[in-house]
């Protein structure tokens, strides 16, 4: 697209582009130089603050257990939220008003509320109403919050997937005499999940990012929380932030790449209908309100991410 907005540069445009490039480089360099100087002044560049990251000590004690907890919470939340989401997604498509409307209300309600509120409520609920041991409370609260929110997002994803299937699928199923339940479970749902698989996988990114909330607000020992303990030990605030951010970026980049690889594979596959709703579809549905993100030209999605 970008090349449509401008011609192949002539002499004047070339000169202007060079000037802009130089100006931009100078600005970036000034910014980096300022950052470098401040870090140097505050002693954040000293080798002894960075050294822990190349020895196994910091990784074994803080970062890897933190990463393991992040992955554990995200994985659990995904595994529980998916069937729940599928259930509510299907319930919203029910022919019966008394199923459709309550299911819709539940989904819309949990999508409208910040995940943090759900986590805080779940934590206090476990303190007051259950005998759950202190050790497990943060994990349970984080997973509960993530499940409630993401199940309702996934419900919308599943619903969009089912609605995106050609109408002939249902008609053919009815023609050979399948019941509504059979049509849904053997014909529509498997295809819808296949179609939405990339979108479902990339929802993991949102979940992984949201686990960090539990670390700060509920003392769940995930990656960001472990960073705090680590920095308390080595006094390396900035280096620890940089390392933790890089771990998150790599992790989420891997998930995103897997999702788009999957999308490409499904698009080429013989079994699918050819329609694949990619990761963007999640982002379009991931936040409340605003009638979907169907852009002109049939591009689904676009919009904002939801999570944190």
């Amino acid at each position, binding site marked *: *697209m*970008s090349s*449509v*907005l*401008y011609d192949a540069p002539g002499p004047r*445009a070339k000169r202007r*582009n060079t000037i802009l*490039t130089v100006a*931009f*480089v100078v600005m970036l360099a000034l910014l980096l130089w300022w950052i470098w100087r*401040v870090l140097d002044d*505050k002693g*954040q560049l000293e080798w002894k603050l960075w050294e822990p990251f190349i020895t196994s000590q910091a990784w074994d004690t803080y970062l890897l257990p933190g990463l393991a907890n992040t992955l554990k919470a995200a994985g659990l939340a995904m595994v529980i939220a998916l069937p729940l989401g599928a259930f509510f997604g299907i319930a919203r498509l029910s022919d019966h008003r008394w199923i459709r409307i309550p299911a819709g209300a539940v989904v819309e*309600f949990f999508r*409208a*509320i*910040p995940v*943090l*509120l759900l986590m*805080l*409520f779940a934590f*206090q609920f476990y303190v*007051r109403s259950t005998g759950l041991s202190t050790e497990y409370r943060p994990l349970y609260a984080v997973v509960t919050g993530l499940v409630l929110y993401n199940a309702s997002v996934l419900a919308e994803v599943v619903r969009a997937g089912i609605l995106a299937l050609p109408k002939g699928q249902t008609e053919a199923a009815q023609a050979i005499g399948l019941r509504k339940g059979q049509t849904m479970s053997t014909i529509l749902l498997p295809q819808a999940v296949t179609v939405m698989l990339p979108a479902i996988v990339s929802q993991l*990114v949102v979940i992984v*990012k949201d*686990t*960090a*909330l539990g*670390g*700060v607000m509920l003392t769940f020992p995930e990656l*960001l929380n472990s960073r705090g303990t680590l920095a308390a030990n080595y006094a390396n*605030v*900035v280096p620890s*932030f940089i390392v933790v951010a890089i771990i*998150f*970026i790599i992790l*989420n*980049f891997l998930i*995103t790449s897997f999702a788009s690889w999957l999308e490409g594979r499904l698009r080429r596959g013989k079994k699918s209908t050819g329609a694949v709703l990619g990761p963007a579809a999640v*982002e*379009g549905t*991931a*936040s*409340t*309100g*605003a*009638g979907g*993100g169907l*852009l*002109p*030209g049939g*591009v689904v*999605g*676009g*919009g*904002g*991410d*939801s*999570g*944190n």
Partner: protein
Amino acid sequence: MFDFLSKYNDPTLLGAFWVTIQLTLFSAVGSLIWGTLLAGMRVSPVPLMRGFGTVYVNVVRNIPLTVIIVFTSLGLADIFGMTMGAPDDFKLQGFRLAILGFVAYTAAFVCEALRSGINTVPVGQAEAARAIGLNFSQVLRLIVLPQAFRAVIGPLANVLIALTKNTTVAAAIGVGEAALLMKSMIEKEAQTVLIAAIFAFGFVVLTLPTGLFLGWLSKRLAVKR
């Protein structure tokens, strides 16, 4: 039933939600400006700017917002000495730092929404604009962006609603908004479910009308092609 509310004077329930609204509005304006600039960079003829835009969006989108917000407090304020014009007022400082973090994060999503909007403008229009001698910034400002904005009101509404919910993360650095008040209330009072319901209701009231209004607006303003 609601007696316990009178115990909370600073911030009051409405005061805390007012802080949430302020965080949302300031961050929305900031991220719209910074996001538009980023989108301009991502489609610009200067390769270095395109590269910067791409790297910025992909890096920032993959870092949890919580990490960014905590960093504004522990990193920017403590190490870099960014006091945001309020060196002695920690409340104000936290408020402004949180806005800075929200702008940095949300702008990446605004940029991506806008870029998808730019893609909806027919190629022929940009070509025609260039044919009558407009340069890149004129094509972008006069022809492409106005149409792109109208096409992406829906996605931008989603970004705004996500931002409204994301402002609760400011509680992580002690900004007295709704989530922080809920945390302290829910820990002290016996009515866990009632308090949670009040705050949940508050967010439904904030997000639902926004979504409905902007959804209506996006249908009304969409460029019919």
